[in-house]
């Protein structure tokens, strides 16, 4: 592990790098309320406001709604994920 402020590991990926890398890709956006949105990420800004296409809304893992285009206000966003998620109910 390197000391103070030195990050030249080659594996560092800042939030800005991540945002650049995910445009046009399928993403899962999870809100603080627990609702998930799956769709194609059109674009996003520094507030984590998000524009998505072919958006599906999942509440408790169940499909509740579909939107052609959707704008999600960034303050509600918990995370943006690149993956298709695997669900497993724990103990």
């Amino acid at each position: 592990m390197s000391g103070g402020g030195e990050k030249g590991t080659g594996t560092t990926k800042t939030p800005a790098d991540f945002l650049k890398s995910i445009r046009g890709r399928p993403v899962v956006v999870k809100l603080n309320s627990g609702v998930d949105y799956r769709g194609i990420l059109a674009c996003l800004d520094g507030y984590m406001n998000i524009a998505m296409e072919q958006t599906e809304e999942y509440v408790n893992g169940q499909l509740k709604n579909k939107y052609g285009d959707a704008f999600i206000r960034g303050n509600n966003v918990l995370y943006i994920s690149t993956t298709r998620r695997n669900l497993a109910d724990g103990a």
Partner: protein
Amino acid sequence: MASEEESAVKEPLDLIRLSLDERIYVKLRSDRELRGKLHAYDQHLNMILGDVEEVVTSIEIDDETYEEIVRTTKRNVPFLFVRGDGVILVSPPLRTA
């Protein structure tokens, strides 16, 4: 890169700009939904909507049977202002490409 069309969505708020004078769907906190014509908006997503239908969904638990009762209340408002901080999601009408 050089010739971006005016209709291109470069930042999320462009999606809202392209919905001006169209009927949009707005999902708000505390299970409120609005459908109405977008007259104006700003960077906070404060919005002015016209011809609005508001749907409020509430879930009540029956005291005796403990069954969940889903209630939706609808009302129409000719003109209203939405404060942006309550907005979760905005969806424009389907545009045919």
